[in-house]
């Protein structure tokens, strides 16, 4: 295959991943390649990125797809040409691999752990690549691999004892004492994955079927404080959208509706001739929103995300009451009204919301009955109830009947579940018990959040 076809193939894959690429972008990409030294990998990738990926999210997807595409392309070429590692055509990196295989029997595991930890702390990319092969040689092939790359990566990582949290049992000066940098660990895992895939391809002598990027690959970074800024940037955009959507009117909505009764009444003044046409008054839509947010430990990673969503919603909607719950429910509307800083809010909620009782496990049944008692009189058909939670009851009674009465009184009820759809109704998740009373959205990426926002501001009742 020549370069043109390869590039078009890359464009196709990017499109399949949802990056909007038109013919004009591809033309630009070719023009750009004409200007740079594209035999160099970095400038090749950057020239393509500048012309094909036009937002930070697209750029992330682009880097992933680029990596995957050309890895597959080169492996396919290698199979075609019949090149095997350790054979004639091996480059310097390949030779290191061959040595690694030979040395596998003699590798001291403890020494290897130390070396990898040091390389991780130093961020030495090339050395890590070699060490990944070494680790694979030492561990991957000794025991029987599961043939599922993801599982093997985690297994190797466990054997190597690579963790991002501090491990005080190590002596001073050892990078593991402070915990390894998360970013470097992630990169090392990617390298392991690459190597495992390479080994697999070599064993089977064919390319595995290509799979689309999992949502996990491009999900929101869900680590604690460090990624908060990233979530916030996204929510800031969302806030703007929330503030502006729902205000403009589209299609037939743009026209005023004639109020026949009023027109007739006015026509009496002019002898029954409708000179003055009366229109129905436009009633601005003012959603009343009730948000319930699960803050228990099972949704820890999502709750920062959810709290920032709550934060953004509060900025955009005046008439909104928010609650957090674990075992019982607590209203936090005032906290949000008083505090502007997100940090202060999440602190306040975690310290004195008083939602955890004894066990710290979510009790949906109790939450529903308390919520109903709190707002029963206020719920009416123009109100919207949004629940942010994973519907994991920890074996307790879901009390879907109470939830049904709440949903029946409110105009619309939404459920945002931070778990991938795959895990729904698995274990103690009872989302289906509630799903019949409300609209459930899978929501753990910003894109999914946007889908939800569209639903929220699009089809509102008046």
């Amino acid at each position, binding site marked *: 295959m020549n370069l043109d076809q390869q590039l078009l193939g890359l464009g196709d894959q990017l499109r399949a991943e949802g990056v909007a690429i038109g013919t004009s972008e591809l033309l630009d990409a070719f023009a*750009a390649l004409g200007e740079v030294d594209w035999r160099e990998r970095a400038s090749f990738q*950057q020239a393509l990125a*500048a*012309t094909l990926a*036009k937002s930070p999210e697209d750029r992330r997807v682009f880097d992933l797809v680029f990596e995957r595409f050309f890895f597959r392309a080169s492996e396919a070429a290698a199979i075609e040409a019949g090149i095997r590692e350790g054979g004639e055509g091996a480059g310097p990196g390949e030779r290191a691999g061959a040595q690694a295989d030979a040395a596998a029997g003699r590798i001291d595991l403890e020494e290897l752990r130390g070396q990898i930890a040091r390389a991780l702390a130093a961020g030495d990319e090339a050395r890590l690549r070699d060490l990944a092969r070494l680790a694979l040689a030492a561990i991957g092939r000794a025991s029987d691999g599961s043939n599922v790359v993801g599982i093997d990566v985690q297994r190797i990582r466990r054997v190597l004892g690579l963790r991002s949290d501090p491990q005080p049992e190590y002596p001073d000066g050892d990078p593991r004492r402070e915990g390894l940098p998360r970013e470097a660990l992630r990169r090392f895992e990617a390298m392991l994955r690459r190597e495992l895939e390479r080994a697999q391809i070599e064993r089977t002598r064919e390319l595995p079927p290509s799979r689309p990027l999992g949502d996990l690959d491009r999900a929101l970074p869900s680590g604690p*404080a460090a990624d908060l800024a990233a979530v916030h940037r996204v929510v800031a*955009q969302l806030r703007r959208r929330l503030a502006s959507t729902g205000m403009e009117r589209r299609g037939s909505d743009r026209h005023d509706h004639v109020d026949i009764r009023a027109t007739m009444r006015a026509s009496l003044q002019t002898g029954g001739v409708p000179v003055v046409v009366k229109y129905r008054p436009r009633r601005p839509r003012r959603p009343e929103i009730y948000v319930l947010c699960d803050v228990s430990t099972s949704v820890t990673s999502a709750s920062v995300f959810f709290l920032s969503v709550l934060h953004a919603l509060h900025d955009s909607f005046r008439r909104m009451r928010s609650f957090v719950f674990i075992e019982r429910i607590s209203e936090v509307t005032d906290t949000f009204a008083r505090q502007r800083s997100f*940090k202060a809010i999440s602190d306040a909620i975690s310290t004195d919301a008083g939602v955890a009782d004894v066990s710290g496990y979510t009790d949906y049944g109790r939450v529903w009955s308390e919520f109903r008692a709190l707002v029963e009189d206020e719920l009416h058909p123009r109100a919207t109830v949004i629940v942010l939670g994973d519907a994991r009851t920890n074996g307790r009674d879901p009390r879907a009947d109470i939830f049904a009465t709440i949903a029946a009184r409110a105009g619309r009820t939404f459920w945002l579940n931070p778990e991938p759809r795959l895990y729904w109704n698995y274990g103690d998740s009872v989302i289906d018990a509630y799903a019949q009373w409300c609209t459930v959205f899978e929501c753990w990426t910003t894109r999914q959040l946007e889908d939800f926002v569209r639903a929220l501001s699009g089809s509102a009742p008046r």
Partner: protein
Amino acid sequence: MDSLPESVDALAAGLRAAGYLPGGSTALVAYLATRLDKPVLVEGPAGVGKTELAKALASYLGRDLVRLQCYEGLDEAKALYEWNYRKQLLRIQAEADGAGWAEVQDDIFGEEFLLARPLLAAISAKTPVVLLIDEIDKTDQEFEAMLLELLSDFQITIPELGAVAASSQPVVVLTSNNSRELTEALKRRCLYLWLDYPSIEHELAIVRLHAPALPETVARKLVEMVAMVRELDLKKPPSIAESIDWARALLLLGRSDIDAATFNETMSVIVKHRTDIELVAERVGLALQ
């Protein structure tokens, strides 16, 4: 210098000479922009040198910089062109009798009565310029749509005159703080460059370039602290410009080390919200003691 850069490295060196240290793909994308005559859309948080890039490009290429600062409500009369009504009126009055309607009408919609605003000025300049359209995300979508003709064909259509084609090819840089999603149509016409906060080494080099008198150890400590401050969840994280300001402030005050006292005194150079100051004082101040 009037010709276009020969290679990416030449352009990177040129930018460096102009006092701008390009990082990562910046030089490459800028190079592509000059070679392909495509506008560049530069996005990134505030204060990472998006505007500076345009200025440095202008000074390296030896071109004038035409700048259009965008804001909400910016319209074509302020961005593209406007008819000089007063002059038109004078012209009509001066010829009140004698001249026929057709002549006067032809006359008063001529280039003589046109007030060129930044965009028209940029494409009708005798020598090529660098056009900076700053903070495009501040305008509304209608304005973006208006730019499309300019960005793809480098021409502006004036109803009374027809299309005015560019007499020289400007290098166009658009910046955005990503406060709003720009339209696909605009992005399609541009090269895309995402600028983020620089790595510690890169920022150190920038600070050293702009405050050469500051000892390296102090500069390093300063940059590391700024990176630490950026990690916190602030309303406005400090920008590169503020790192430089802080370095200069330290120089002026004659401090040779950043200790807790110095930090508390000069913190307001990099942090500019009351709540932020409290947070930073609490977190970073503690780390210093």
